């Protein structure tokens, strides 16, 4: 399961340069900081809810960093803040979904190359396959990268997507973050066979299972998978083994289903600290660099908070105007009576 024959154009999957490694660290630091801040903002009432990605920074930043936003397209779930950040998405617009401003987020998916936030578990995995097949039909070389969880792997749509992709040789990377939990249900009660990557062989697809807490390993696997897809070899499964260190969401209380001991044992090493030690030991970064990354992360989070606080509610008329490209008389008349009644009050 763990090997993927490199396509000819192997420079596409070259190892990261020192600059890139430092950039990865800065990104992970920013993501970690924003994630912890968002939980605090929820407690402070600035946002009504949030789904933390604590512990998944390496899996998210490593994979998102591999995306070529000039041609690829990414399909997130509700927990891919780190991917969005690594891809350079406007983070106020991204976080607006958690402020309950607009479900899909306010960012432009076409410009960002990131599909709208998806709250249906496994909801967009098939979209990635369709988009990828569109590349084949167009003769383009974009690759679809679709994220989902260990829990999502149980959904029928994931099977249909893998089968379609493999039958059609669509350029899709199925990126599973196996974070050990689907809300309260641990992987061993969710994923028969023990891992999602093990399913790929049944579809005649290669799979890479990687240490999802090692950002370089994740980046490397993702780059390999992209190169494989781009060379016309069909879909690839990547399963990044990681851990959801926080609650499922700010509404969740993990104490009801796992003990602190279990958390400590399951979580393994902190991906951020681990990367930091690696950079230090390899002499690629020093304390001032880390301090600077941290300070920048704090500034970014502050800016995002300010942006979120400045964000007013969307005008109610958007409810009506954004349903269709071509509106209907019924919607227009509903909009008119909505306007009348809300102005009247």
């Amino acid at each position, binding site marked *: 399961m763990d090997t993927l024959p490199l396509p000819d154009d192997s420079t596409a999957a070259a190892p990261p340069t020192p600059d890139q490694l430092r950039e990865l660290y800065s990104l992970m630091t920013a993501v970690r900081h924003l994630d912890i801040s968002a939980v605090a903002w929820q407690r402070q009432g600035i946002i009504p809810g949030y789904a933390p990605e604590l512990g998944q920074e390496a899996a998210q930043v490593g994979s998102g960093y591999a995306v070529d936003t000039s041609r690829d*397209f990414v399909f997130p779930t509700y927990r891919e803040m780190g991917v969005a950040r690594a891809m350079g998405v406007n983070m106020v617009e991204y976080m607006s979904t958690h402020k309950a401003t*607009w*479900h*899909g987020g*306010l960012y*432009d*998916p*076409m410009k960002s190359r990131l*599909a*709208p936030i998806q709250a*249906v578990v496994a*909801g*967009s*995995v*098939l*979209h*990635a*396959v*369709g*988009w*990828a*097949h*569109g*590349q084949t*039909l*167009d003769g383009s070389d974009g690759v*679809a990268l679709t994220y989902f969880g260990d829990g999502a792997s149980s959904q*029928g*749509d994931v099977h*249909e*997507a893998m*089968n*379609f992709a493999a*039958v059609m040789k669509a350029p899709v990377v199925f990126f599973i973050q196996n974070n050990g939990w689907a809300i309260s249900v641990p992987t061993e009660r969710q994923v028969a066979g023990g891992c999602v990557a093990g399913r790929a062989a049944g579809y005649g697809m290669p799979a890479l299972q990687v240490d999802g807490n090692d950002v370089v390993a994740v980046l490397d696997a993702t780059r390999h998978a992209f190169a494989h897809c781009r060379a016309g070899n069909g879909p690839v499964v990547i399963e990044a083994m990681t851990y959801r260190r926080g609650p499922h969401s700010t509404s969740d209380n993990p104490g009801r289903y796992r003990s602190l001991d279990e958390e400590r044992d399951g979580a393994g090493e902190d991906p951020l600290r681990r990367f930091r030690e690696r950079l230090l030991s390899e002499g690629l970064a020093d304390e001032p660099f880390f301090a600077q990354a941290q300070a920048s992360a704090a500034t970014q989070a502050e800016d995002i908070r300010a942006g979120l606080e400045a964000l007013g509610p969307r005008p109610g008329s*958007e409810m009506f105007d*954004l*349903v*269709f*490209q*071509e509106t*209907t*008389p*019924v*919607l227009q008349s509903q909009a008119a009576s909505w306007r009348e009644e809300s102005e009247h009050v």
Partner: protein
Amino acid sequence: MSNSILEGETAGFRQTESAAGNVTVVMSMQQALNRALDEVLAENPKAVIFGEDCGRLGGVFRITDGLQSKHGENRVFDTPLAESGILGMSVGLAMAGFHPIPEVQFDGFAYPAINQIVCQIARMNYRSRGTLPMPITLRVPSFGGIRAPEHHGESLEALFAHVPGLKVVSPSNPHEAYHLLKYAATRPDPVIFMEPKSRYWQKGDVDAADGGSPEGAKVQREGRHLTLVAWGAMVARCLQVAELAAEDGIDIEVLDLRWLKPIDADALVASVRKTRRAVVVHEAPLTSGLGAEVAQLITQGCFDTLKAPVERVTGFDVPYPSGDLEDEYIPNIDRILFGIQRVLEYRRG
């Protein structure tokens, strides 16, 4: 399914010239739909047709007959047997700039795809604030009447019509089929195109040059005493009923609703303000069927002129039955006549 239903027509079309100089061609609805798809593929290089058995076989109803060999395997292709997959894939293709025209093989097999239809196709334009339009035309051979196996005779229009973000249309004859499909398949929004499968092999005049307005409802027969509202296969039946009633001096207007979402309330109200009586006919079960919406729109718009409550003649609140009982289930001429009678004889209590 009996064999005869699936046998395509291979003969050439018979042409006649109308008074206005338009050329009308006699063809079956299957032929009209096939021709419309052929033209859509020719006119829009981004249009793609796919589904179960759509390619080489040309569909179990032959609606896509010959299209793969003419337009190539990239434009018309078979998928694995998974409806959620077909519709989910449509979303991605639309995001990539295509105009997908998927087929669900039979009405009842839209259910496995409902999640993708309701939560994804219908909402992606909204969720993405208009940046990811979903120009998806989902063809669904629909309704009953062909003595088919279970799940092959369903009427899902009430479900689809309730879903924000979908548009729903159903043609009643070859002419409507040709024009409405060409219109639907060039829209930037998702349209569920419900084909009345029991009418596939009925022939009728198609004037390809002049379809009239593709929007809203259409009066298929004018009348003064009562309005019959119907769609799909029930329109032909209502026209038959109107002929019978005419023999008794009852002059019935038949309104072909065509668009089941958005519903053309103005046309309903205009017709019933004139006739002051209405019966709505559909195959789907009564409760929470689209007939309730139609009746309420009429009542809302014609309350002061209505002579009797709007009557509904529909399928029963039972699962669509096997062939032996389907004539008991689908509104037949007698049941529609009884409904008309109840309305005509209504006296305020």
